[in-house]
């Protein structure tokens, strides 16, 4: 833990924070897109180390949180059917749908299983030929190569009883939607490091140019985040708007070509509804026609679902960067990780869960200003 100790001692972190303070001449609003970055920022108090002129707002980068309520209800409808083994990443189990979550269904007798890898679900299917095995394929671009491989292998090995309920989301269209939204405050982005490890960052270059917004591809460790903030602020202060790569040790401009190729073999880009945000054009993946026999939406006819979202929950505004978790009346009292109203309180990457876990109960407006370069509390 040398690195963290070094960090806590102030050292490198304080010196970057000081440089940020010396660079800033006016207020700027930056958004970090990835939920892992949000947790790191809150855990290490990065937002309290930097000068008050630089405001960090948290983006929609939690795949569990943005999976639409319709899709979750659809998953629940399929999982409730006899003869179905419903498989999912663990994060999805406690995400509330209109009526309960997957864990509740499991306790009522549905065969719901957590898997580590989507390939585990294909294996369960080949071991249970008499059952329909469905995998809930959610995630951002980082997860897409794994989900694509599961569909690809199921087809290649003839595992006919395997299908995937696909609800993939893509980062760049969501960033564009945030920038286009009326009332948008975001002026610069910390780009998602591990998403770009797969996809590269060519797509972000056209975003930066089109919207005149600096984008710095950033890692998730404390020093990464501080460096990413400094690089973004430098661009803003000098009137530049380009893509820079803070996370060069993990990210190249072209990403991982083998992974990208398989994703495009199995999936194609299509419109996608995001929980709390609404439908965003071309913001998700769908299973290609050639692989339709493994598409759970086609295999299971799920009738029109009437969804019901909690009226108290403001996760939609949080996911768009308009509000912070501590601005929510339900936060920490009616809504807790034990009894979540919205997905942002459930997931390990949700902003509400991060604020709850690290004791951020005061609304942002009531926080005392911390001098730049001060170590986190």
């Amino acid at each position, binding site marked *: *833990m*040398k*690195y*963290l100790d070094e960090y806590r001692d102030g050292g490198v972190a304080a010196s970057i924070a000081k440089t940020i303070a010396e660079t800033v001449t006016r207020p700027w609003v930056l958004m970090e897109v*990835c*939920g*892992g970055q949000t*947790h*790191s920022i809150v*855990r290490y108090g990065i937002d309290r180390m930097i000068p008050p002129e630089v405001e960090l707002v948290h983006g929609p*980068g*939690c*795949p*569990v949180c943005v999976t639409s309520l319709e899709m979750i209800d659809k998953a629940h409808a399929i999982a409730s059917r006899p003869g179905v083994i419903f498989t999912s*990443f*663990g*994060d999805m189990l406690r995400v509330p749908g209109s009526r309960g979550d997957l864990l509740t269904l499991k306790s009522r007798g549905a065969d719901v*299983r*957590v*898997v*580590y*890898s*989507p*390939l*585990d679900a294909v*294996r369960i299917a*080949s071991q249970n030929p008499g059952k329909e095995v469905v995998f809930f394929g959610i*995630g*951002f671009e*980082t*997860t897409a*190569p*794994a989900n694509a*491989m599961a569909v690809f*292998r199921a087809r290649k*090995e003839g595992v006919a009883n395997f299908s995937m309920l696909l609800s993939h989301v893509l980062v760049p269209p969501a960033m564009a939607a945030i920038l286009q939204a009326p009332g948008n405050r975001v002026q610069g982005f910390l780009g*998602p490091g*591990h*998403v770009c*490890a*797969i996809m590269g960052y060519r797509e972000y270059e056209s975003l930066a140019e089109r919207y005149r917004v600096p984008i710095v591809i950033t890692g*998730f*460790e*404390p020093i990464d985040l501080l460096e990413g903030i400094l690089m973004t602020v430098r661009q803003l202060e000098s009137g530049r708007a380009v893509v820079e790569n803070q996370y060069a*040790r*993990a990210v190249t401009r072209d990403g*991982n070509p*083998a*992974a990208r190729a*398989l994703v495009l073999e199995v999936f194609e880009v299509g419109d996608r509804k995001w929980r709390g945000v609404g439908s965003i054009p071309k913001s998700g993946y769908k299973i290609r026609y050639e692989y339709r026999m493994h598409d759970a939406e086609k295999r299971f006819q799920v009738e029109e679902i009437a969804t019901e979202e909690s009226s108290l929950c403001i996760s939609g505004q949080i996911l768009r960067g308009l509000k912070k978790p501590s601005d929510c009346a339900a936060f920490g009292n009616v809504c807790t990780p034990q009894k979540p109203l919205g997905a942002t309180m459930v*997931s*390990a*990457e949700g902003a509400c869960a991060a604020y709850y*876990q690290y004791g951020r109960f005061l609304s942002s407006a009531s926080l005392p200003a911390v001098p730049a370069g001060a170590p986190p509390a």
Partner: protein
Amino acid sequence: MCLGIPGELLEVRDVKGLKFGKVRFGGITRDVCLEYAADAAPGDYVVVHVGFAISKIDKDEAARSFAVLEDLGQTSELTADMAEQLLPRSGPWPGEEDS
């Protein structure tokens, strides 16, 4: 679950035409698909996301990154399925249970 977790590649094997490896993350060893990091060899450190290696990483970087992920509570995907005893920690190679 949008972060990769670094681990040490211990051994490599071909299973039904797919390249797999056993990767050690702290005290846990898991089977990992290496199709997207095909040049990884035993002794290398790889970044793994939901059972797939997505890139190679150097040893010091791996150790530092893993420590931060553990501190952030972002390594739970490694054990989420084990709570149910659904799959062995690192048992037979995938697809070779019967052999």
